């Protein structure tokens, strides 16, 4: 069984609008509201791919039954700690006319210590029945990166594979002195790691070199909207999600990660796992949801995906 941790989940609210007119009335042509957050997206995608997966984290307020119900409907087992505040909403505004996407993210309120303690105790119990845990997303206000590091250390203690899908600063702190199966830094805001530009090919190799010094089996870097680079201790592979039309890019990276985990856990090579991830990402991008449409579509796109060894 697999598990994903999302301490700062949110509803992803998608608004498709021909063109936004700022400062006046706008009506969305299409809307969709779905459970979101990095770990949630990975859990949804893993479930679509047929894995038994538990989504855990902190959740609260009137939206909980809707949030959890939507996850269970696609096959995710829920195991959240309830907190005394509402679930955040992240707004994805897509202007079709301008082919432009805008993301507005709500900041959460501070989380009480008693809820964090409950979560940690629950997480430690969950470790007895899983073999991989993915920890993803931002942290709620007032939660220090060291809290995640404690979760990673607890998983390491039980020899459970850890996947870190975190913003660069949190990831750097958590990776110190712990062991990770996969690291997938979220560089959307910083666009660089260790001070090196993710869009520069030579700099990407430097980032990999730095990350290889840590106890990490696989490194995944995303650059641009569609490009992925995957590195093990011995190889580096690169690939691109093939999209002909302009699409909504919610959760595409998380779907990619889920696809990669799914295939790599089947003992496939990193090249094949990369292609499967590209298939999952493409399916999610065309789905207008934060997860792939179906396993069969992912398999179809996987067979069409192209990856090349670059090192």
């Amino acid at each position, binding site marked *: 069984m697999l598990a994903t941790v999302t301490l700062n989940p949110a509803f992803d609210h998608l608004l498709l609008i021909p063109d936004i007119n700022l400062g006046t009335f706008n009506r969305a042509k299409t809307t969709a509201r779905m459970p979101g957050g990095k770990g949630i997206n990975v859990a949804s995608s893993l479930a679509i791919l047929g894995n038994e997966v538990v989504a855990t984290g902190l959740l609260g307020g009137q939206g909980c039954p809707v949030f959890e119900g939507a996850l269970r409907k696609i096959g995710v087992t829920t195991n959240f700690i309830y907190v005394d505040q509402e679930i955040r909403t992240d707004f994805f505004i897509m202007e079709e006319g301008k082919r432009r996407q805008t993301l507005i993210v709500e900041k959460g309120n501070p989380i009480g210590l008693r809820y964090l303690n409950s979560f940690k105790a629950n997480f430690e119990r969950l470790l*007895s029945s899983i073999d991989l845990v993915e920890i993803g997303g931002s942290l709620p206000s007032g939660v220090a990166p060291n809290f995640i590091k404690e979760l990673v250390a607890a998983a390491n203690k039980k020899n459970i594979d850890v996947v870190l899908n975190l913003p660069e600063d949190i990831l750097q702190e958590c990776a110190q002195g712990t062991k990770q199966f996969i690291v997938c830094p979220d560089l959307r805001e910083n666009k660089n790691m260790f001070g090196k530009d993710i869009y520069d090919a030579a700099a990407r190799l430097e980032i990999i070199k730095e990350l290889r010094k840590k106890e990490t089996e696989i490194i995944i870097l995303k650059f641009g909207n569609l490009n992925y680079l995957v590195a093990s201790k011995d190889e580096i592979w690169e690939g691109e999600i093939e999209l002909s039309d302009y699409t909504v890019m919610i959760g595409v990276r998380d779907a990619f990660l889920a696809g990669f985990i799914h295939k790599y856990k089947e003992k496939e090579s990193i090249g094949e796992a990369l292609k499967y991830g590209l298939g999952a990402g493409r399916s999610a991008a065309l789905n207008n949801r934060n997860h792939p449409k179906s396993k069969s579509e992912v398999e179809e796109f996987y067979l069409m995906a192209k990856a090349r060894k670059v090192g």
Partner: protein
Amino acid sequence: MKKVKDFITRDLTSVTEDTPLKDVAELLSLRGVNGIPVVNMKNEVTGWISERDLITSIFPEKFQAENPDLIGFINLSKVVKKLTQVGEAMVKDHMIRTFHPVKEETLASDVADIMLQKNLKRIPVLRHKRLVGVVDRASLAHILLEEGSLD
């Protein structure tokens, strides 16, 4: 005939034997459910605690008396003292250790038998002693009626 796996609620919300009763009361209220599994450190189910167990722990006389209506709570301070004691008590002091779990392969009709015979509203679903979800009367009724409508 449908099986538990067709209408299970795959949720692992649970408490441990060391959880204070006041936290259980808060959880039941937030979740809008009437009972919850009790697990150990390996997520194995060791019992069940329900709203009835909580209320019984507050007003045991009401449940033991032949005619509970005759018992009043004249001494308010006694009741407040009792509530404080119960709030600080642990799940292990009031949980039910004889529970009636089912498996994912159990038939819906067998679940209905257990629920009616034992007067249960929610039942834990186990796999190798570990919690994988719960089934409740509403989902059972829904799946049975849905199946009936297909005939």
